[in-house]
């Protein structure tokens, strides 16, 4: 039996740990996996736009004031280029199935400092360091940012990655009424999937993680874009790799008749997994639509429909149908899409979600010069 003082000590320690746990801010993240290469940007919602320490930096949308704030960390398992800055990561050895040794993934991680100066906005890429910092200790490179003033205010800092092809993504930063973007490009193709664990132990004990194998199998043929909202809900889009504009499926996009959905013969339907209900215009996407349990996540197949007045996004309750297997009887709702025509007509199909405010986001589809998007609100 514990004596009174021991029990008191345990209670005090427990309360202290509880207090610490609620003061630690969960990291939010946006991750893309493009052809087996993973790029992640992490940030904390603790960066408030109305924080007096940041107001000088953010005060004038038209002309940045001098200053810098560490806003995010970027992590990659493959070499990337951001503007003129190259982050090199040693490629894993080629994977040989079976008894051959499997390679370890290498990772590179850097802090991102949002910096204003008389020359404009930029990101300073610096060595990743823990603890509170007021200035980067060692700047690895500098990335100029494109700045836009937006109407939707984001009271806290947000970072997101929007895939814009097979090898590239757009890094999008939002804070207050500011939006900054830059392009990130993977530099080296990856043909086979790297393994993250030493399999020898598995061979002896026959214990292995099925979930990891399932994920690996998925990524051999799909790309993903994931938003993690702290320790809470996750939103993930899964779509077919290498859906190029030269392929027959893109030709079908161009020629699809009014009121028909765009089918893809070479990939499954775009899959959208949600851990929290979302509101797209008049359409509510609930969780639990495919699982047998009330609190199970939501899963939707996402189809693109040509309508007389433009394009529409169709949500369907069969998230694992093939791209030729749209069954309207499973449609859960559809919303109109905003459309933009871009300059780059060579972009492979990509689909993603990106947060634009702490509780609002955007579903983005890109294929060739076409870019569609639909805004949503996260329902708590």
């Amino acid at each position, binding site marked *: 039996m514990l004596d009174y003082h021991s029990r008191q000590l345990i209670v005090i320690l427990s309360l202290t740990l509880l207090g610490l746990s609620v003061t630690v801010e969960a990291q939010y993240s946006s991750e893309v996996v493009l052809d087996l290469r993973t790029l992640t940007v992490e940030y904390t919602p603790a960066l408030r736009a109305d924080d007096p320490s940041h107001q000088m930096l953010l005060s004038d949308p038209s002309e940045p004031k001098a200053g810098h704030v560490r806003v995010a960390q970027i992590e990659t398992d493959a070499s990337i280029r951001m503007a003129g800055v190259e982050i090199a990561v040693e490629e894993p050895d080629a994977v040989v*199935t*079976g*008894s051959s040794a*499997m390679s370890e993934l290498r990772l590179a991680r850097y802090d991102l400092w949002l910096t204003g100066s008389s020359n404009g906005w930029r990101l300073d890429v610096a060595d990743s360091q823990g603890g509170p910092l007021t200035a980067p200790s060692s700047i690895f490179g500098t990335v100029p940012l494109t700045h836009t003033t937006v109407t939707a205010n984001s009271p806290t800092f947000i970072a997101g990655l929007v895939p814009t092809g097979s090898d590239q993504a757009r890094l999008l930063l939002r804070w207050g009424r500011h939006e900054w973007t830059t392009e990130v490009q993977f530099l080296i193709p990856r043909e086979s999937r790297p*393994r993250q664990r030493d*399999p020898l132990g*598995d*061979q*002896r*004990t*026959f214990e*292995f993680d*099925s979930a990891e*194998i*399932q*994920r690996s*199998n*998925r990524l*051999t*043929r*799909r790309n993903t874009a994931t938003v993690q909202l702290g320790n809470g809900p996750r939103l993930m889009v*899964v779509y077919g790799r290498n859906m190029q504009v030269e392929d*027959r499926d893109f030709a079908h996009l161009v020629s699809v008749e009014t009121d028909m959905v765009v089918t893809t*013969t*070479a990939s*499954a339907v775009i*899959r959208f*997994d949600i851990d929290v209900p979302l509101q797209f215009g008049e359409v509510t996407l609930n969780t639990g639509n*495919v*699982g*047998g*349990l009330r609190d*199970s*996540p939501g*899963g939707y197949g996402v189809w693109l429909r040509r309508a007389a007045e433009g394009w529409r996004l169709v949500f369907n309750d*069969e*998230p*694992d*149908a*093939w*791209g*030729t*297997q749209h069954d309207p009887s499973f449609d859960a709702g559809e919303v109109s899409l905003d459309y933009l025509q871009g300059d780059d007509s060579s972009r492979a199909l990509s689909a993603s979600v990106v947060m634009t405010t702490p509780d609002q986001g955007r579903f983005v589809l890109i294929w060739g010069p076409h870019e569609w998007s639909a805004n949503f609100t996260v329902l708590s």
Partner: protein
Amino acid sequence: MRCLRVFAIVALLGVLAQSAAYAGAEAGGTFYENVLPILQENCQSCHRPAGQNITGIVAPMSLMTYEEARPWARGIARKVETREMPPWYASEHTDGLFSNERGLTDAEIETITAWVNAGAPAGERDAGPAPRTFGDEEEGWFLGRPDFVVEMERYTIPDDAYDLQATIRTKIDDAVLPDGGVWVRGWEFRVGETGDRVHHFCAGIEDKDTIVEVDAGQGEDEGEAADRGGSLGCVSSGTEGKLLPDGWGFFIPTGSTARYSIHFNKEPGPGTSFDNQASMGFFLSHEPPKYTFKNDSIGNRGFMIPAHRKDYRVGAGRMLERDTYVANLWPHAHFRGTAARYTATYPDGTQELLLDVPNWQQHWQETYWYKEPKLLPKGTMIDVSFWYDNTSENGLRIGFDADRSLGHAPRTNDEMMLGFLGYAEEVEPATGTQN
């Protein structure tokens, strides 16, 4: 005198009883005259003495003789009346299309039930057909004695293994592959003496050097192997050996390696270790074939079946780049699979249901062989759908955890969605080398 009278009465009663028995036999039929032909035609290919059954994956009892069949008479009647036996799960839509189709006519079922209801009499042995023989009875090959046999390196499944997917490669003796290689017109798999612990067995021909390797779930699955080419297909419970269609062949170059990919089912524990030595028998093609056989899968490896979900569809598809002659279809899934369907959408937009298996059974994974290879023209879209039942009711019945959401992985307790097809592309003469 009194004794004689008693004897006469007994004799008369005996004659009357015998007459009654024959009358019953005539009404219900006899084993030799009426039932044995049905068993020979429809049942004995599986129900043969253990160790000589299909590929070594054994049926639980032999039904070759009256003595073997009689104790199971009521069970036989029950199984055929419910059409559970002989096993065949494709819908009526494709009746008559597949060469290995099984099933009894209403009249045949009536014959068996009448025989059982009449007391399952033997009848006169001479009234029945001669015993059926199967290929090479001595060595146990279904299709006859192969021209050459490639035996796997003997492999020990250790105590601590369970649900093990092993890939073992064995160099083929160059002596059986002379002059740059040989064309074969078919092959037969034998899973070895421990066939009752084999879930399924896939094989292929590769050009790798001899190595023995074990992939405890981390390695490629049979679908990936098929995608790389050289696949000979798979067998599991209910799969019969088949020769390729006339004019078809498969080229095995000199220096090739045989790949055995075997899924062993066992519980781990001390003393559970066992040895296995699978083998493949090959039948040479004596004339140059017209078409080269290939095996491939149309699969979906990105799915995620939700926990506690019934009737969950996973789809896959492929558009054919060339005119394609399809020889067989093999829908493959694991514990939770309940139904499978292949559909062709032709270039003119018309659709044809190629195969519908509304009651797909994990333990009866049939390969459906067309009687005549089916031509699907270039531009045909083949869609494959599988349905899964991941509910706790099904989990209790089969033995899996319905609390898991799950995707593509090799264990039986994970899932797969692979629509295999054996085919030949184009109408091109074989050139003597494999494409």
